[in-house]
């Protein structure tokens, strides 16, 4: 009666495409586009000046330091955790697995505040920190200092790498590693020659996501960083510029934002390349398609 099933399905598909395109355009592309437009509203030379003030430069540095350290720590941690969770069985494995997801389920602001509770002047870990400082004649501070910013960034991004690797390692299974170890290979050889090639694209993808998130983190860092020009990261600097309210500083806020947006776009492109590569890789090396299942996973 009336339309055939096929036609109905086609129309449904068209509607779905229209809705999602509209959504993406209004919610994602337009705002980003507005950032660029606003950033350039007062001309190129204003733009360049706005992104090179001392506080912005300092924010660049802090962001860079936090991102690089986070990337290194979380890559190492992510690989270790994934191998531990997929290749070993031990008591409390499930608990560890659940704990790993905390950064996803907890508000970053709460994470930041909890660091203050832990390392702040009245915090639990404060006496230990003071003792270490006294003993070594140092003056390390965590809260309201760069170490705090780094810790907060690490905290909010730490599941990204393992989240990407774990499904891949589960999908490939441990047979090859078992075979290699039976032949007398040590764990480093096994990792280098067998485990790593399997997970390298997933790892890279996880690192890209970590970087993207580390660059943009606001909430947790905001709780731990109070000195503009010293411990502010780019997102905090943008916020400060915007809140100061003068017409110039609002444009400056957009100018600095546009830099972050640019970084994001570069990362998006990288991500596309990696996704393409890993898919190709998966079909290239594994006809069962197990691998691609794992890599296609996006949190």
């Amino acid at each position, binding site marked *: 009666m009336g339309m055939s099933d096929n036609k109905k399905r086609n129309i449904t598909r068209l509607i779905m495409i229209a809705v999602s395109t509209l959504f993406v355009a209004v919610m994602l592309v337009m705002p980003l586009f507005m950032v660029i437009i606003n950033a350039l509203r007062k001309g190129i030379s204003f733009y360049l000046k706005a992104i090179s003030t001392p506080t912005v430069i300092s924010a660049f540095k802090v962001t860079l330091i936090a991102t690089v350290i986070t990337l290194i720590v979380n890559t190492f941690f992510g690989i270790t955790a994934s191998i531990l969770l997929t290749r070993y069985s031990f008591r409390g494995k499930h608990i560890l697995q659940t704990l790993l997801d905390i950064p996803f389920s907890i508000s970053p602001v709460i994470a930041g505040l909890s660091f203050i509770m832990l390392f702040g002047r009245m915090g639990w870990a404060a006496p230990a920190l003071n003792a270490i400082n006294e003993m070594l004649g140092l003056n390390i501070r965590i809260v309201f200092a760069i170490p705090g910013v780094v810790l907060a960034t690490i905290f909010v991004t730490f599941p990204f790498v393992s989240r990407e690797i774990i499904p891949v390692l589960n999908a490939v299974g441990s047979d090859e590693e078992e075979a290699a170890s039976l*032949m007398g290979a040590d764990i480093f050889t096994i990792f280098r*020659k067998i485990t790593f090639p*399997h997970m390298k694209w997933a790892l890279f993808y996880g690192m890209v996501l970590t970087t993207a998130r580390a660059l943009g983190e606001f909430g947790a860092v905001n709780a731990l960083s109070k000195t503009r020009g010293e411990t502010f990261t780019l997102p905090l600097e943008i916020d400060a510029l915007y809140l100061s309210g003068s017409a110039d500083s609002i444009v400056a806020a957009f100018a600095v934002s546009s830099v972050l947006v640019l970084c994001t776009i570069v990362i998006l492109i990288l991500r596309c390349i990696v996704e393409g590569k890993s898919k190709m890789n998966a079909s290239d090396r594994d006809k069962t398609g197990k691998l691609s299942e794992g890599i296609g996973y996006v949190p």
Partner: protein
Amino acid sequence: MYLEMKHITKSFGDFSVSRDVNFSVEKGELAALLGPSGCGKTTILRMIAGIEHPDSGDILIGGKRVNDIPASERRIGFVFQNYALFRYMTVYDNIAFGLQVRKIPHSAVRARVNELIALTGLDGLEKRYPNELSGGQKQRVAFARAIAPEPDLLLLDEPFTAIDAKIRKELRQWLRDMIHRVGITSIFVTHDQNEAVEVADRIIVTNKGSVEQEGGASDIYRLPRTAFVSEFIGEPVIVEDFGRLKGFEKGNYERAIIRPEFVEAFKSDNEHFRDMLPFSQNGIIRDITFKGNAYELHLSVNGTELICHRSPERRAIYVGEEMNVIVYRLFAIKGNQAMLMQNKNFMEKDPDGINLEKYLYAEGGYYVE
């Protein structure tokens, strides 16, 4: 005895996978570990290899207890159920891996790998990756990789399951030849009794975590000792009321296993079987299935269903026809015991076994135990 398993027990949590497993394999033998799916065969193999550890009991290789020797030092080659070839390495690197990790000089590695490539007929495929190989080629690579470091014992976990039925038969023969040529003591796991009977010198039948029976392939086939083995091996037909068959008394046995080759069916005018006529009883053909090299006949004999095979060379027969049926022997079951029971009419009326020898089995047949 080259490999000895003594009182091995193993459980995963409260699930008992091995319960007092005992068996042994001689040097140079090709043994099959046969049992239904999930009965703990892979676990036994993994314990021998040292990937898994028994809760109690001893594993002896070459007379030496190896329980505490790490897997990599047991000199064991392992062919995994799905081969577990290194996906990111070429055929050459796969085979070379076990030699390279042992820090063997480059030139020696190359010589050994080339030798194995020639032996297994993989010439020209050295640079391929595993996904570019056929099932049979993968198996060869897995085999070459496992024996490359010259292990003393080769373990193969279901080496044929990942292969198409078509070439499986060919590969069985290939593997058997290859193992005998290399002369390596080997154990392979299978749940396919045909495969075990065809490939192995010795069969160890396992069920629910313990060994039911072990022995030479033909001994296991001819004389199963337990109910499980007699029902697992061959083409068993279970007959509850076998006292209805001419020449048998049920006594206090519970049931019988009758294989197709224990049953003869002929037409009453068959000259060839004239002497046998008095030993036979009537049966109706219920069904005929063509199996290529034989017909499978389903017969209804005095209320019991029997199966027998018939050569396509013989006279054509049809469903519903009446045949004369003789059951030569069967396995009578009581508890978990299986007893070979001969047709008593033959024993009494044909004490010299003339008819048996003439019509069915030559010397060394079932009468010789």
